[in-house]
């Protein structure tokens, strides 16, 4: 079961890599990541939400509690 969960994460990573690859080939069906980010982050709400989440990632992994205790443990 663990392998299935980890496989799910890896599949998402692979999908992201495919999107990046598709956006950089000739006559690409997708826009480059930078262009998409520019579109999404033109909205202040999106930018504040994503910058907030980005900051929290740094806090979560470098400063705060990264791994939670198990309830049933």
């Amino acid at each position, binding site marked *: *079961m*663990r392998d299935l*969960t*980890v496989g*799910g*994460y890896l599949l*998402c990573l692979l*999908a*992201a890599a495919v*999107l990046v690859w598709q*956006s950089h080939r000739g006559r690409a*069906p*997708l*826009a480059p*990541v*930078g*262009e*998409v*980010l*520019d*579109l*999404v*982050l*033109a*909205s*202040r*709400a*999106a*930018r*504040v*939400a*994503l*910058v*907030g*989440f*980005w*900051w*929290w*990632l*740094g*806090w*979560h*992994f*470098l*400063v*705060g*509690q*990264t*791994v*939670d205790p*198990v*309830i*049933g*443990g």
Partner: protein
Amino acid sequence: MRTVLPALPWIGILLAICIVQLIRAQAFDTLLFGIVALALLADASGLLPVTRLASPPLAVMVLVAVPVGIALVVSPRHGVVAGLAVALTGLACAPFAWTERPPRPLASASPSRSARQREAQEEEAERRLRVLLVRSAVAWAVVAVALCVLELVSFLVGRLSPQSSHDHPAISELLDPVVESWPGRVLFVAAWLGLGIVLVRAGRRAPDA
């Protein structure tokens, strides 16, 4: 009164994260996402002032990021120095995230063409670009939502027992030992600061959406 509707999905996402942090019993994290959601709601309702601030040059950002990165790598994890470095980084980035960005100017066509031809060409180019951008944004959103759902399910199920925690690891559990190692922390800090620079700079060339 500014338009509330475009901000609602982002406020909803922040509130959903707020609930997850509440389940984690992390008061600070809950408060953080709650305050950001409330600030966005107040902003969308026109209650907060809008600032116009140009992004600092890339060279300046890199010059600031390097010492912060070194401090985060050499200082102990979960320590005071790391806390100060991350907190100050957030405080420095916040005004640039909050600022209003100017719209991207349209690409100009050849000056020898007539005004009507140029206008039609620009409209067609912009329409194609919008279709491409929206298609790409939807594709990225599908991947992001899939990852979030998987992470959420793993987090909730994994809390029930040591066995389910092993079977359904959250991303934090998988990355924690990586960040604990020296090379892993260098990679994480570089990626985190790099992404921060991208997020603070992105959006300034965007069309008026």
